[in-house]
Each structure stands twice: as C-alpha cells, then as structure tokens.
C-alpha cells in the first residue's frame, strides 16, 4: 500500500538520504506495519476525543526572572564547527 515514491517523499521530509536498498526495505516494512494498523479502523472512534497526553496539562508559568544559564563556551563545547561565539555551518543559499 506504500509506494516507493511515498518512501522517497517521506525521506525528504525527514531529511534522510536512503540507499536504493533501504528504499525497497522500508517500502515493504512500512507497508506491513501500516497494514497491521488498519485494524484500528474497525473501531468506531467518531465521538472519542484524542489523548495526546495523559496529564491534564495547562500552561506552566513562572516568574520572569533571570536564572542560571549555560555560558556560551559550554553551549558551544560540543559543536562540530564553530567560530567565535557562533555555530558554523555550510552555506545555506
């Protein structure tokens, strides 16, 4: 039910580069998994609200006060590439 072109489209959305082999494999495996998921359609859920989260979450507020924060040096310490106090990346346009 999933076509190779679907897999290619989703890979682009997910910023993944897949080999031909991976495309074939995921086409089959995602089809199997989604076919199994078709059983959910046997359930009438028209009047059932969705549960994205089990807690009755509301906005969590706090006072707008300056607290501890990571200093720039630490924040940059894992950067694959950096310059001064910035992350360095390849050209964007």
């Amino acid at each position: 039910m999933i076509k190779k072109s679907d897999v290619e489209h989703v890979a682009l959305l997910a910023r993944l580069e897949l080999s031909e082999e991976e495309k074939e494999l995921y086409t089959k495996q995602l089809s199997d998994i989604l076919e199994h998921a078709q059983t959910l359609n046997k359930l009438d859920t028209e009047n059932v609200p969705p549960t994205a989260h089990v807690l009755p979450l509301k906005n969590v507020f706090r006072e707008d006060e300056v607290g501890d924060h990571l200093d720039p040096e630490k924040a940059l310490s894992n950067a694959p590439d950096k310059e001064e106090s910035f992350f360095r990346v390849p050209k964007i346009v």
Partner: protein
Amino acid sequence: MKLYQKTAHRLHEMLLNKEVSSEEITQSVLNRISTVDEKVGAYVTVLGENALDTARKVDRKIKDGTNIHPLAGIPIAIKDNMCTEGIRTTCSSRILYNYMPPYNATVIERLGEVDAVMIGKTNMDEFAMGSSCENSAFFPTCNPWSTDRVAGGSSGGSSASVAADEAIVALGSDTGGSIRLPAAYCGVVGMKPTYGAVSRYGLIAFASSLDQIGPFGKDVTDCALLMNVICGHDPMDSTSVKFDVPDYTTFLANNVKGLKIGIPKEYMGEGIDAEIKNSIQEAAEKLASLGAEVEETGLPHTKHGLSAYYLIAPAEASSNLARYDGVRYGYRAQDPEDMIEMFKKTRSEGFGPEVKRRIMLGTYALSAGYYDAYYNKALKVRTLIKQDFDSAFEKYDVLLSPTSPIPPFKRGEKVDDPLQMYMVDICTLAVNLAGIPAISLPAGMVNGLPVGLQLMGKPFDEGTLLRAAYTFEQNTVHHENKPSI
C-alpha cells in the same frame, strides 16, 4: 556471598556497622565488571576513578559520623540516555558518539546529592528504540542467563548489569516496556513510575508523552529506595507533577489481605507462551493464598494497543529527533555541499536502521493527508485504552499479567522482522499509553530462563504495587536465583 552480589539495603547496613567501606564495595563491583562485562556487554562507559572518588568521600563521612543516605556509597549504573555532565552520553547512537553533556539530568543531580556512586553508563537500543538491546550502534548486550539470548530492551545494559552483579542498582527509562521487559528477561526487579512522577529533564527524548525514568534492583526494597530519590516535582520539566512524595519503603509490608487483583484475560490469551502462562497463574494463586482477592477481568481494547503505540511513539520520535542535524552537537557528515545536504548526510550516516525506520513511520503518520487516518486515530484509540484501565481500577487495586509474551529469544532471531520484534511489547506498552505505574519482578524460571510478573497500578499508587510485589517476594524464592556467568 560476595560484596557485588548483595542488595543496596544490605550493603547500607554493612556500611553503618563499619563492616565494609564504600571503596571496597565499589572496587568489588569494578572488578566484577572487568571479569564479566566482556561476555555481557552491559556498559558503554565504566567510571573507575570518578566512582572511587565518590566512594572515598562517603567513607570519610561515615568515619566523621555524618548521617548518610541509604544509597550513599552504593554503585549504580545509569542508562546512557541520561545526561551526565562531562561524562560521555551516547544514547548508543553514532550520532551522539562524542556528546559530552554540559549539564546533569535532574535524576543524576538527585543521586549526586545522596552520594550514590555512579559506576558507569549502560548500553541500550539506540535512542531507546528496541526490545532486545541489539539496536545499539556499538555492540549488543547479552542475557547473563544465556549469552546467546537477548537481554531485552531497550534498557538491556541496565538490567543485565544488575543481573550479572556488575552494579548494585540501576536506572533505566521506559517508553513502551523498556524497563520492565529487560527486567523480566534478566530476572531482576524493574519499575516504571506514573507518568509525571519523575523528572525527564536531561533524559534524551524518545516519545515525550510516554517516556519515564525508573529503577532496577535485585529486590523490591532496592527499587523503593531508588524511588525515594528520583521521584518528585521538578520546575525544569513542565510535565512533572506536584505531589507529596511518600517514603516508598513504608509500603514494604508483607500483607496483601483483601487486596483486589484483576487478571486481564487479554494478557493471558493468544500469543502468550504456555509455560509463561503457567508461571503467572501460579504467581496469582500464590497471592490469592496470601489473602488477595484474585479474579479474571478484561481490558477490551488491548489488541489495538500495539498499533496505536507504534504510530504514536514513532510520531513523537520523528519530531524529537529532528534536533539531530549536525549543527550544535554530535556527529556531522564530512564536507557537505550545503546545509540540506549536511542534514541529510549527517542523519543518514548517524542513525541506525531501527531509528530511521521509526522516523520514517512517524513522519508518514504525521504527514499531510495521513494525520487523521493514522496519528489522530491512534490518539483516539489511546483514549479507549486509558478508559479500559480507568474502569478496571474502579474495581481492582492491581492488575496482574506476564511482562513478556515469550521468554528471552535468541540474538538475531527478530532483527529482520520489525513487526515480530514490536509484538514482544504487547504486555507492556498499554501502561505507557495510559500513563500508569507498573513493576516487573521475578516469577520463576522456564528452561533456565527468567519469567517476569507484571503488576500494574493506579496513577501515583506505586505504594500498593510495591506492597504487592514485596509480599510476593517475601513468600517466594525466585529473586534469589542468580545466573552463573
């Protein structure tokens, strides 16, 4: 009995009686790791000197007559998806192979405050995605009971470390069974607390509405001791709940008289190994003989849990894992032409096959045209599953089931068939969808391999689970079994 084989509460007594020092305990566990970890593969990182430094600090406190916490000086293993400042945290992924967190997860801070001895970071399925601990980018973790079998996942390194006596206690995380399943497979106790009971700050996210940190121990008491440290509200996690954290050890009473236990028939039916079923039936009879009221019940939407879970969890994962782009930390592909190529190459080279599969599945389920058919449908089914539990808990205090439908399987047996691998989670994942607590504890052996008994409870009623588990443990000898590795 060797020091490394003992429980935390026993070692604490010995520390207080000055029969042993924390340095001796820690050294004993480090030696044990050097002897057996080659065969088990529980650790990604072992912290020798750091651990001994903390141990010596505790020994000085004891010498000075300072009061110490029950976990002070006790070696603990930490799953490698919890951030440890200045200590490599990999999530067993190539994309984080060199990540040195600049801060500690809240649970690590709390363990530090009580002077627990962090002895190492444990192997896991990459980004906690897996049921066997074979999806690590580095090496698989083997089952200490039979090294050609899986340790269970995703917290397989943590469960195996406790089972093989390479740690006294451990922390894991559970998104669909990732504490309970490996606990069952390795023959130790593992607990998944209520969603919101433990801060997720500094836990590298897989599926944020399902993830929860929890303890592993050689017995129920050790799990209760760890719960005392890790539970409680944290302003750094907006989904952490404000509640009065009890002293969980006060629930450790040998008494289940009048406790109402339901056995959901869907968890004892098709797909459950016959011998596991027998062990679980025996466990239920044991609890009944001790005064619990045990009867069969139902959770009618159980069979839809797997599909709902394997849409929701990958959907959340695909969003959470968007942050791995090679810009701020972790792996970056060499010499990309431009930004988009950098993202694509970094992610394709950095993520393993199961992680890519789930990102693909989740992205598909959230993409335009499929959102309602898959993701939103799964969220509605999640409501039905939660309602099943709500009604069951109107009648019962505890629900009882096997932790896994099958015994620990052979390594390599399911890696090529994701759906078969996902099926291993059928007894555990509904608990995460509903956000309730559950514990897995040893309930016997089948063909030399451990069987796990799962007890599920009402939200924030970990106390009742601990009481039932403790009573079972006090009246059986299953937890005394040790693998000969």
